[in-house]
């Protein structure tokens, strides 16, 4: 690292923020693009597990809330890809790399949504896990990304309320409804525990070193457990991990998450990865003529 890069590193580690036009080391720019692009991909792929449930939503209120949530997510991906575009990677290339499997998206969006119970658990707990990561980006060293995160976190907090309400209504309903929620929690617990990544120390995490993230993976997971396990218990649900408990030192203990599964899934081998990427690929091909028509008009 040369003196100029070291100066930059000291600056961001001291809480300094950078704007698009500022000088930045190539490595920092590459890391930013990789991280932010994966976030954009995740918001976009996050639409797919939920979109079909807009039709099946069992009341008008739920249908409206779910449509709004899914719309927010596409809107987030649009905003996030714009940040990536300013850093030098156009949206079309992000979409190409997403479809070809070259870039990644979050583990939780590679799984099926089996019942309305999953819809509630996703909106409540997957969004809760996500908002913990996203709140830690409010202090991101890259200022444009930190700024859009304000809007994103604000909207995500509504998703959590919607999800909690879906779950609560079912828990107050019939035995079969409670079973639907418990089964969904059983399915999602593994991916939720993997969500924040393996517990490498933050000093070894390049995203923390450059202050793209402001917390380590394990800190995020502890925060999730602290915020949500008591609520899960309060609703009468059982967390499918016999080792889960909070020690006297206020640290949550749990069974080792399946890191091999996480690796398999995020490298494109999740249960729904191929099908969802295929949907995105075919719909992109089928609508290519529209983009050509719009571009011709703009030229």
């Amino acid at each position, binding site marked *: 690292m040369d003196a100029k890069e070291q100066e930059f590193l000291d600056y961001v580690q001291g809480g300094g923020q950078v704007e698009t036009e500022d000088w930045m080391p190539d490595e920092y720019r590459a890391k930013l693009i990789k991280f932010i692009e994966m976030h954009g991909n995740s918001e*976009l792929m996050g*639409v*797919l597990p939920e*979109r079909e449930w*807009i*039709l*099946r*939503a*069992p*009341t*008008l*209120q*739920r*249908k*409206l809330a779910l*449509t*709004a949530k*899914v*719309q927010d997510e*596409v*809107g987030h*991906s*649009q905003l996030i*890809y714009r940040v990536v575009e300013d850093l030098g990677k156009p*949206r079309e290339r992000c979409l190409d790399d997403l479809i070809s499997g070259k870039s990644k998206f979050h583990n939780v969006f590679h799984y099926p949504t089996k019942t*309305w119970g999953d819809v509630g658990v996703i909106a409540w707990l997957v969004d809760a896990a996500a908002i913990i990561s996203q709140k830690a980006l409010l202090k991101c060293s890259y200022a444009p990304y930190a700024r859009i995160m304000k809007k994103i976190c604000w909207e995500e907090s509504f998703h959590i309320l919607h999800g909690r309400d*879906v779950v609560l*209504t*079912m828990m107050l*309903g*019939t035995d*079969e*409804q409670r079973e639907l929620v418990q089964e969904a929690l059983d399915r999602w617990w593994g991916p939720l525990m993997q969500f924040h990544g393996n517990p490498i120390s933050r000093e070894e995490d390049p995203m923390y070193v450059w202050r793209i993230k402001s917390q380590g993976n394990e800190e995020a997971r502890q925060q999730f457990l602290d915020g949500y396990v008591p609520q899960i218990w309060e609703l009468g649900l059982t967390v499918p991990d016999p080792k889960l408990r909070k020690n006297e030192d206020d640290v949550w203990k749990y069974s080792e998450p399946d890191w091999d599964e996480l690796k398999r899934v995020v490298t494109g081998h999740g249960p729904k990865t191929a099908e969802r990427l295929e*949907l*995105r690929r*075919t*719909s992109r091909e*089928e*609508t*290519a*003529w*529209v*983009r050509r*028509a*719009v571009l011709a*008009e703009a030229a």
Partner: protein
Amino acid sequence: MTDQVQKILEIADDELILGWRNSEWTGIAPLLEEDVAFSSIAQNEIGHARALYERAAQELGTTADELAFDRSPEEYRCSRLVQLRLVPDWAATIARHYLYETADEERIGVLKQSEDAELAGLAAKIDREEAYHRMHAQMWFERLHDEPRFKAALDELQPLLDVRGEHTPEFATLWEEMTSVRRSLAGATW
């Protein structure tokens, strides 16, 4: 059922079914901007359906959700036009959007003149949102009006606009799925 309630249900059914059909583009539209636009339009439409069902429910002594989900498929009065599954055909989708919004402006205009002040107020509120749908439909109409596939879609779909009380096979599939969670457990609230 009075003619007025019948008319309100007709519009509500159109808005509910078209709301779903428009939301089918969420996540897979040609441009991210159109994902957002179509799902925003879908939200408005489902919201309009809810308001209109609520209004009809007052007269019929039932609830908006029961009207939206618990009638038998034959009872829905939606136009054949809104029933069609058009994804991934963007030209046909825009043709439907344009035909529907143009016709909808006219009937909402009639409701706005209603002697029933509450209904006229509701129609005015709906129309304020529909104005943006019309702008969006018009923008795409201008972009695509020279495309042969768009012109063909307009010709093909236009006659379906006023066909009511007849359902496409696609509607039966849609109804099955739309009501599946609700029908899955007797006596459950959601």
